[in-house]
């Protein structure tokens, strides 16, 4: 599998709720989502985003990942343009109950990793039936 060649993945523009007032480009980042016994982890490719530009929120079971970046300005003439930089935005509906207080996000090499710890499941309560 390590011999596999990386392919160019077309950048998909993000579908926002409503339109942005600013004419900026938002892409939907590529993600990996996996689950362990304790947590759900969302990994997203957000090259160019600094830690200050990351905004992760969970509201009504909707996880929003937003990455804003300052686009570096290059002077001179553009000889080749194969990609266009933009911000990132993607939303997911989370099925599991998540402990909101303990959500963590880390950023390394342009990859954002959001850990969503599962809330401790409610202990099943046995109800004894009295025979009267």
């Amino acid at each position: 599998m390590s011999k596999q060649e990386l392919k160019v993945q077309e950048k998909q523009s993000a579908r926002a709720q409503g339109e942005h007032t600013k004419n900026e480009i938002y892409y939907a980042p590529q993600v990996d989502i996996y689950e362990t016994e304790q947590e759900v982890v969302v990994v997203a490719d957000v090259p160019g985003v600094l830690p200050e530009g990351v905004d992760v929120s969970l509201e009504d079971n909707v996880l929003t990942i937003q990455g804003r970046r300052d686009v570096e300005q290059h002077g001179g003439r553009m000889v080749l343009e194969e990609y266009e930089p933009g911000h990132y935005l993607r939303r997911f509906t989370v099925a599991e109950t998540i402990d909101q207080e303990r959500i963590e996000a880390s950023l390394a090499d342009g990859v954002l990793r959001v850990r969503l710890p599962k809330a401790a499941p409610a202990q099943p309560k046995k109800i004894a039936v009295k025979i009267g």
Partner: protein
Amino acid sequence: MAFIRFTDRPAFRNPWVEFERIRQGLDELSRSYAEKGKAQIRANVYPPLNIYEEADKMVVTAEIPGVKPEDLEISLEGETLSIQGKRDSRQDDFTISYHRREIESGNFSRAVSLPVKVDVEKISAKLANGILTVTLMKAAEATPRQIRVNAD
């Protein structure tokens, strides 16, 4: 636009063919106007690159998230810049279950030939937040030189 001489016309022709030809010609015209100013080329080889040319240097940028500096190799041979590397985002843990897998792992290798001669000694590469920036200073003979005009 192709010219059709009067004598080239077939004796019995379908009049609709002519309309179709005009329509195609107009379509082509509007397409060439729409794409003007947006010279974005789709990359076929990973990673997609942007290249800027300044007076004294060339700047090559690429978005390569998840690639570590030690896994990246950049070399220059003549005017050909090659970028090689690998990305490994796989998890060795078998207890996890994936819901989505969109991020790929694998190797990449890309070579571009630069339009100008560059100074082999003055190349710098920086990888920050998943963005690679390679700065190549132009060779002395390729940089523009100001020529003073002397009045007699």
